[in-house]
């Protein structure tokens, strides 16, 4: 059960224990982090679960596929190199300590 820290738009932090195999989006939703809205329920259709993940974690994350990349690059104004859709990141013990920044919603 990796511990995940969310940095919310108001810069407050919440650390929660995630279930192995859950997506980052699911972890946020299950823990009442409403700043991630995840309208499509995690099927990579809407880009409402946008987040930033520090590049130091890049090697431990499955890279974004074409669908995710296209959604990110075209949906979001403040897209950055470390932008991801949290519904496409599935958690494992090696992600313990992951820090996720949630931007102000653009939706």
């Amino acid at each position: 059960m990796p511990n995940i820290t969310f940095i919310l738009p108001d810069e407050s932090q919440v650390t929660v224990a995630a279930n192995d195999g859950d997506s980052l989006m699911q972890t946020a939703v299950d823990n009442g982090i409403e700043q991630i809205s995840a309208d499509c329920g995690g099927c990579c259709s809407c880009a409402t679960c946008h987040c930033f993940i520090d590049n130091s974690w890049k090697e431990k994350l499955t890279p974004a596929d074409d669908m995710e990349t296209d959604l990110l690059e075209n949906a979001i104004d403040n897209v950055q190199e470390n932008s991801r859709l949290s519904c496409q990141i599935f958690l494992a013990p090696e992600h313990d300590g992951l820090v996720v920044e949630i931007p102000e919603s653009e939706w």
Partner: protein
Amino acid sequence: MSCIIIGASHAGVQAAINLRTQGYTDGITLISADKVLPYQRPPLSKAFLQNTLPEQRLWLRPETFYQQKDIDLRLSTRVVKIDKQEQQVVLDNQEQLSYSKLILATGASIRKLTIPGSGLEGVHYLRDHQDTLGLRDQLPETNNAVVIGGGYIGLEAAASLKKLGKNVTLLINSERPLQHLTSPVISNYLSNLQQKNGVDIQPLAPATAIMGEGNKVVAVAAANGQQYPADLVVAGIGVTPEQSLAEEAGLAVENGIKVNQYMQTSDANIFAIGDCVSFYHPMYKKQMRIESVQNATDQAKTAALAICGTLTPYSATPWFWSDQYDAKLQIAGISAGYDDIVVRKESEKSLAVFYFTGDNLIAVDAINQPKSFMITRKYLHDLPKVNKTRLADCSQDLNSIFTE
């Protein structure tokens, strides 16, 4: 005093959540006729039907969430009456609850078949958690499935049943699937996709009777004179807004519960949101009723804001999605009433159809072309004028077409 929400699907749950995030501290009672925790509906015809999504992933929120947010979730409970003078609702156990604000998130009910044999064992619908479980229970003994209805539910059910290895016949009333919802380009693509995957699509073949042996379905007769063997029938023939409580309470209804731009009904203390609502959409300048997750959640946010004192007119850009086989269909806007289309085809498997009235873009249907969906969704709100020649040319950068 408190807020009572009738209906705990996407709209009702989102309203409860947003009341709390807006700082609403009074009681919230969330009433659901279902016996299970509030759940997502889109997977019911897709991943949950195919049994690839575990049940606990279907829940919109875990059980503990409602306790943590002090939301009194009443499952297996129906409201039988609203008394708007006394500001009370009466539950099916005769309990009376008072409200200061009431939110109707009653959704829509499936339209049922009325042809002979509709009551036979093996005839199913797809709307609720229980419907999908009922279907899944019957899958082991099913070889032949007949799906009735060429809308999204029919197409998704056919795709799911095919993926599960069944022989599938899809009977549709019209010439093509989604006839009233999309252009022939998209209909034909989806029709071909079903056929390529082995579904027998029969256009202009409304079901006329369901034949049984004993109580069990064995075949479906269609208007084309054919009979199709069936151990299982799934009907997806549309829904009607669930407005009877509102109507009986004397609220204005007209193909849905009528609301203003803040989701307020003809009674200032009663709001209505989601599939059950008829509202004026400022983007399209007409009265609409929209059945979608986006509409449910966004209207919930508008109602919660209004109840908490922030009046923000509803004007969200509608969007939808559907997954069938390897096709991801993403839709922004409402294409009804279009007079011109532009097709942007990047490959055999990736195309987008842009819908116009005159020079104004009003909607897009994108199949495996998320870029067209996303960019359109971003800029669609003012129904922009877009250069059609450039739009059809895949070598032209989409972003620059919209921002030129």
